[in-house]
């Protein structure tokens, strides 16, 4: 492992990321790596830090940055796969496979289009569909000449990726628990809506209408925030 390679942090990088990376350098070779990571608390990483790390891996296969991503995401991806009903061993294999993909595809990560967690989720989701259902997850191709592009929004209404993340979190926080529960089941149980209905012993129509309601609320909340933002800027 080449831990001597320097991770190049932008001047805007939060100081604790620099600290952690320095710590990693200091402890590497003494087997103190995990310890220092545990002490610094992996949850201390913000989405900004993870963006920098993904970019560092994409630009120059930076191993220290990759280690940060691994420590943050691999245990969560493992948890995701276990929730879907797999053994610890299978889950760990799939987490490893996901991280290999992350290493190979990091150059394609675009911070303007997706948060690191969204990007990771997509990779883990597609791999688990392939691994456990032996199916593909068909996707549109951004470069397909047949793709119909979005209408251009006026510059003052363009919502930045980071801001849209904040809006979404706020909207999710306001969802009633029964809707949140159904969202979690959809993401973590690989159940059709019919199976969810059986599982909860409620009619399929109720499952669908609650999920629709949740989606409508998330959509509305985000639109409202966009509008407020647009109004705020024009005033």
């Amino acid at each position, binding site marked *: 492992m080449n831990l001597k390679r320097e991770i190049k942090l932008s001047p805007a990088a939060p100081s604790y990321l620099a600290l952690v990376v320095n710590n990693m350098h200091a402890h590497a070779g003494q087997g103190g790596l995990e310890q220092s990571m545990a002490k610094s608390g992996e949850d201390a990483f913000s989405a900004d830090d993870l963006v920098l790390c993904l970019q560092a891996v994409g630009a120059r296969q930076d*191993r220290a940055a990759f280690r940060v991503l691994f420590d943050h995401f691999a*245990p969560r991806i493992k948890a995701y796969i276990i929730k879907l009903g797999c053994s610890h061993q299978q889950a760990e294999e799939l987490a*490893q496979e996901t991280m290999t993909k992350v290493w190979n595809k990091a150059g394609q990560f675009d911070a303007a289009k997706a948060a690191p*967690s*969204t990007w990771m989720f997509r990779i883990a989701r597609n791999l688990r569909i392939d691994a456990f259902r032996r199916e593909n997850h068909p996707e*549109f191709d951004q470069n397909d000449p*047949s793709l119909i592009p979005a209408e251009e929004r006026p510059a003052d209404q363009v919502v930045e990726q980071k801001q849209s993340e904040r809006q979404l979190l706020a909207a999710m926080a306001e969802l009633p628990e029964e809707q949140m529960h159904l969202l979690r089941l959809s993401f973590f149980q690989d159940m059709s809506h019919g199976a969810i209905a059986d599982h909860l012993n409620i009619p399929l129509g109720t499952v*669908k209408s609650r999920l629709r309601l949740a989606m409508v609320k998330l959509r509305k909340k985000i639109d409202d925030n966009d509008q407020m933002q647009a109004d705020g800027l024009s005033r």
Partner: protein
Amino acid sequence: MRTSHHIPDEMLLAYAAGSAPEAWSLIVATHLSLCSDCRAVVGNTEQIGGELLDSLTPETLSEDAFDLLMREIDSQAGKQELPKAPSTQIPSVLPEPLRSYVGGDLHALKWRRLGKGAFHIPIATKDQSAQARLLKVPAGNPVPMHGHNGEELTLVLTGSFTTHQGKFQRGDIEAADDSVEHMPVAGPEEDCICLAVTDAPLKFKSLGARLVQPFIGI
């Protein structure tokens, strides 16, 4: 033109979460090529997936997991994945991912006769629970009256059709379930080609249509 009939929200959610079987995901993804509104919803929903992933209690990995991974990565050095170049430079009638599933654009298709001047092409997926197919109904012709045992999504690719719910054109999705009995009629301007996905055999009303059903695989 902006699409006015969209994929139902709960199907977009199932697609983003990864729980929708492949045939349904194929029609969702093909609609996404033609509809930036639904693309935005799926993007937001995948972001929810990311947030939920981030909020999970981490599961410890084995101690040597990272070293094992780096050894694996070093042994496959040089496998950097570049974005795939699109298979064509000119806009085609069939957008991705549908084009790849049927092996080319319209001119590459081998239609099978369905009766009443209509044609179809079953599309192979690894999904046993639902069937995707291309349908071609001649301009001005009706699709035989039928109800449904399950759910059906239809995406218009050329021409148009009209039901009691209105007119459906390129990019539009018609969603039907067992409560819906409809008789779509293709518009007069050109043949109407659709991508249709059903999770159960259609119930045709007329005896003639019922009799041929086992043979044509609908």
